[in-house]
């Protein structure tokens, strides 16, 4: 156990340096990419299409967008990087007996923490701009980000294991993530959706998370209900299933790499 912890720390540290080594602004890149996306979406949808809905009036479209964008980026970037977590370490899989799970944990956690830090910076900027956000709700945001992490690790383990067996994963998953992005109310508010769709919205965990975070930060509204319990259990279940899936496959990673 202690040995695995040492290994995990080594890989985590390595993931951080690998992602930002040799870049001038170092960790800044983790912020620059989402900021550029935020600017593009903000300009296209806020200025050109002039998307307007009452929920965004108080903080402005950009602020509204930023609140939902970072949880999504933390989630999707973690999954994207997890795809290669095992394959990228093929050299070690062939020669060492370390638990393969560590590859996924370190990759996902490093990516997730980077974007969590980015989220903190963005929220700080919103605070400095005097946007009316309910700051007392920050722990609630952190709780929802924890759910994002559980989901990202669980799904990350599945895609990492699948990638060893099927090359299609590398091409398919990014496409799937793009679809997922547009079906999640990040660029828009659920109120713009047709009424018939709304009951099914919470089947998308990311929709549930983004909507809940906005509700908390914008309206200061957070009363745990049955759905929150279900969501927590479901997130843990995804993690447990992902881990089971991964460990079933990992006995044969060496054979298929």
């Amino acid at each position: 156990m202690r040995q695995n912890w040492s290994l995990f720390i080594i890989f985590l540290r390595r993931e951080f340096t690998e992602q930002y080594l040799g870049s001038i602004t170092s960790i800044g890149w983790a912020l620059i990419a989402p900021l550029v996306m935020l600017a593009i979406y903000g300009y296209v949808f806020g200025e050109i299409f002039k998307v307007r809905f009452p929920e965004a009036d108080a903080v402005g479209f950009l602020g509204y967008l930023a609140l939902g964008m970072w949880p999504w980026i933390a989630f999707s970037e973690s999954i994207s990087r997890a795809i290669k977590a095992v394959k990228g370490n093929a050299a070690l899989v062939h020669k060492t007996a370390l638990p393969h799970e560590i590859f996924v944990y370190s990759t996902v956690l490093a990516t997730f923490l980077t974007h969590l830090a980015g989220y903190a910076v963005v929220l700080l900027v919103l605070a400095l701009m005097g946007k009316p956000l309910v700051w007392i709700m920050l722990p609630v945001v952190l709780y929802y980000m924890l759910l994002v992490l559980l989901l990202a690790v669980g799904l990350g383990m599945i895609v990492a294991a699948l990638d060893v067996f099927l090359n299609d994963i590398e091409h398919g998953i990014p496409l799937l993530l793009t679809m997922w992005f547009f079906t999640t109310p990040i660029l828009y508010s659920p109120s713009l959706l047709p009424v018939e769709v709304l009951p099914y919205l919470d089947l998308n965990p990311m929709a549930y998370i983004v909507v809940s975070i906005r509700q908390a930060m914008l309206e200061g509204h957070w009363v745990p209900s049955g759905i929150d319990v279900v969501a927590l259990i479901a997130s843990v279940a995804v993690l447990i299933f992902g881990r089971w899936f991964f460990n079933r496959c990992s006995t044969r990673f060496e054979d298929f790499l």
Partner: protein
Amino acid sequence: MTGKPLIELTGVGKNYPLASNSSDRLAALWDLLLGRPIRRTRNILHDIDLRVLPGCSVGVIGENGAGKSTLLKLVTGVLRASQGEVKTRGRIGALLELGAGFHPDYTGRENISLNAALVGLTQTEILAKTPEIIAFADIGDYIDEPIKHYSSGMVVRLGFAIIAATTPDLLITDEVLAVGDESFQKKCVKWLENYVESGGTLLIVSHSMYHVQKLCQQALWLHDGSIRKSGDVFEVTQAYLAFHERKTADTETSDRAAADGDRFRIDSLWINGCDQSQPSIPMGAELRIQGVVYSPDERMPVVVIGIVRADGTPVYGTSSEIDAAQLGKIDAHHFAFELVLEHIPLLPGAYTVRSHAMDPEGVRLFDTLSHDFIVAGQSRELGFCRLPHHWVDAPTEESIAHLQNSDDP
């Protein structure tokens, strides 16, 4: 030595899935998820039993592809056994193939941390050991470069330095030590001997029976994935060597059988009329080499004749193709050749005539027939061939003085 075994394998087998296309891979994935055995596999190892006690090193020997590396990977835990049980105790260090457990993109320093952690050291222990490892590896500034920029020798140096610093209870290694340079190899062998003497245990794969006998008490001979023989190192290595001698003898016999078939060959060879005995030829006399060559396809073969000294040093050789000589047709398949060396300048001693049959194109060499002869005579000259020469009788003083005054070398 007593104590609980460091390694205990019982009925261990390992198969590899046959998965060249994606549908096979998908089927294998499905089998894995359902927790049932993969359908299409190839067996690499079967029914391996092995106990390694502390201080009782084991050498694994066998031909290429016998499953030796797979066995080591099973013991280190890189691979999971398909059948049977693998139990290990204590700290295990492994140095397998090139770049044992190294990540090519990590720097030397990062790989040290990684490998030390794999052996079971804590972060503080790793930090304390790092300078010692760097000193032993002796690769200079490369320590902060990614491993992929290393030469193979440097990778082995670093790998071995980590093992040397962490002193595992059991060291698993294959032929990696053959990669380093002479001085590093000596350093490693010395370290290994010390390690074994001070109670360390080795599990090594080697093709060098000398090393196996020197370092190990036990040996395991793997043949086609199963144990052919195991036990005392001398018994097993000797049985293995005997097996190889028999095998080599068998292939030589079959080579000769094939040569006797329908190929170009020298049927007979005479030297100055002798076909068996060793003729003695006076120095400066004539050497007449005659023979019959066989051609399977009625075309005229090329005959190569060479003279070598008894120790095998070539003296002279030529061929019917070089000299554009015609062979005499005896019948459809037999041709006569005759080569005369008028005044052989060979100094007294034992020599051999070697004749070879080649295809008409002079490309492939098929057969060799040799015949010894002796050059007789009394001479105190040196070397093996008399070169034409003469001494200038009493050269005048002026001719030398002229040379001494000249700057010309």
